[in-house]
């Protein structure tokens, strides 16, 4: 590739429109939010535009730390689960015949068309005592009496994974389908059993794709707002819920802005850390 870099105003003109849109709809609102996070709350009113780091000082509470910790924990756990199940699942899809692959991918895409609200309420119904799946188990004689599985931590985890799973597969599918089928075959001729081949060659050569998928699902589930309220108990509410509560119901916009920015910084640092780990030179294995 030796294409010349564009020069002069005319050559850069096509970039003007997207840059403008980015500024209006992304940079500007974000700037406003940063500004608000440093302003003071006016009880009974909106906020006073002054420079005050008091909002950030006020973040240092046990509740905020616990909710932040829980948000990161459930996002990390669901991302790990999604990749753990999604990777072998996608590998099997990629090994199928073309027609079967398309059918599976269309099916997964159709799950994406469901809204978070529908998914949340459907699962809360399916996990309930009165009309849930446990009745089916009782019917087959596998359980004594129907029980309620929702709301609870497991129900929340299930809901989030259900929502994020199609994205995991969609991120993992392109690299897995491009994997040279000769690679696992070569490992087999070199004496590696099928299971060992899967871990040393398939997982090994797609390490970057796995890290990418993990980061994507992590970031995606970090913003979970509806599902914790539908499928979780108050102790399972994530930071998004807390921020919304402050902004809408407590009318404390400066504090919620500070929370959001702090949350974003922490997540950003974690993502960068993950990327560094992903790229880090592996340990000597010869």
């Amino acid at each position, binding site marked *: 590739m030796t294409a010349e870099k564009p020069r002069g105003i005319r050559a850069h003109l096509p970039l003007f429109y997207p840059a403008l849109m980015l500024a209006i709809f992304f940079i500007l609102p974000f700037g406003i939010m940063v500004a608000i996070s440093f302003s003071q709350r006016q009880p009974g009113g909106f906020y006073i535009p002054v420079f005050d780091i008091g909002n950030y000082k006020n973040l240092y509470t046990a509740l905020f730390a616990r909710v932040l910790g829980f948000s990161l924990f459930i996002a990390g756990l669901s991302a790990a689960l999604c990749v753990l199940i999604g990777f072998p699942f996608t590998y099997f899809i990629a090994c199928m015949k073309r027609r079967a692959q398309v059918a599976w991918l269309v099916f997964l895409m159709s799950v994406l068309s469901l809204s978070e609200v529908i998914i949340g309420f459907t699962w809360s119904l399916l996990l309930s005592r009165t009309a849930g799946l446990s009745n089916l188990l009782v019917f087959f004689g596998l359980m004594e009496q129907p029980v309620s599985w929702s709301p609870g931590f497991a129900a929340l985890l299930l809901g989030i994974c259900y929502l994020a799973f199609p994205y995991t597969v969609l991120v993992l599918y392109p690299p897995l389908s491009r994997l040279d089928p*000769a690679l696992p*075959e070569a490992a*087999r*001729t*070199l*004496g*590696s059993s099928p299971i060992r081949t899967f871990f040393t060659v398939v997982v090994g050569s797609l*390490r970057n794709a796995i890290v990418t998928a993990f980061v994507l699902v992590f970031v995606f589930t970090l913003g979970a707002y509806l599902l914790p309220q539908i499928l979780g108990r108050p102790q399972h509410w994530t930071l998004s819920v807390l921020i919304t509560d402050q902004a809408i119901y407590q009318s404390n916009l400066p504090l919620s802005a500070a929370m959001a920015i702090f949350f974003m910084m922490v997540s950003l640092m974690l993502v960068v850390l993950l990327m560094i780990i992903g790229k880090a030179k592996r340990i000597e*294995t010869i």
Partner: protein
Amino acid sequence: MSGLILEEIDKNFGSVVAVQDVNLHLPHGRFVCFLGPSGCGKTTLLRLIAGLEKPSRGSIMLDGEVITHQPAHQRNFGMVFQSLALFPHLTVGENIAYSLRVRKVGKTARRQRIEELLNLVRLSGFTDRHISQLSGGQRQRVAMARALAIEPRLFLLDEPLSALDAKLREDMQVELRMLQQRLKVTTVLVTHDQREAMTMSDLVVVMGTDNRVHQVGSPLEIYRNPLDTFVADFIGTSNLLEGFFSGSQKITIGDRHLIVEDLPENLSPGTPVTVSVRPEDIHVLPGIEEGDNRLPGQVSFIRDVGSSVEIYLDCDGLQVISQSTPKGRPAVKQGEEATAFLPAAACAVLRS
């Protein structure tokens, strides 16, 4: 019986026939080439030997042991793939040591073996390089070293040189042949390039588009005595003249007669046959000469490529190509009358 034996092998993919009725005996320590046009099933046959496919019928034996249903990872073969299939996330050393790690060879022994193998393929000091930092020829050598790491019972190669440029390919052919002779490992190479097969192999297995084995023999034997018209046409260039057997060493082509030395067995007069004559065996004589084994005609084209001259003769609608390496200018010119002389010993008679 030592060596690799394939008995009555068939392989179908659904309704598609990939390999049909293959019977082969490949002796121990030889270099064997599976040669054929694309789609003839030669790669499938190699994959059957490697254990990457299961035959639909028939059995495979190695040194008296039936291995038809043995999984690939228990066969202790080394295979070089067409795409090379080097593990992109491992270094050169890790790639080569992969099979040793699987077999739980100790670290010191592994390092020593990596050094040995890199010396063998002339890549000493490349242990810690990444695959992406290597050139095509270097990757080639790493793939061979990796396949040879466990001293395999069979060394299998699936068109490994096809991705290299012509000059490098010829160097690698010679190198691979010398490597095989040094290690004395039974080697099977799949190729569609007949020059490659001729250069390297002790034994050539010619496969045809009907997915069957047409002939097995040494390169010279296959070149000199093709068993059928497919082999004669596929191996090198050949003049194929159609006629019929008219008794006592005589073949009639049009109104000319050829006296030949060897004939297929049980040939009855009147049977249609094809006579195959290599271009380099045909002599072009200036002027019209009548007589047996002579086809008079006209020079339609002369192709002089420096090292050799090809003369195209039009003999009553029959095109005959002669190839020679003359010291001076060819004795005939384009448009002149000339006669093609086909020596009896050079005419291979094939059933049509």
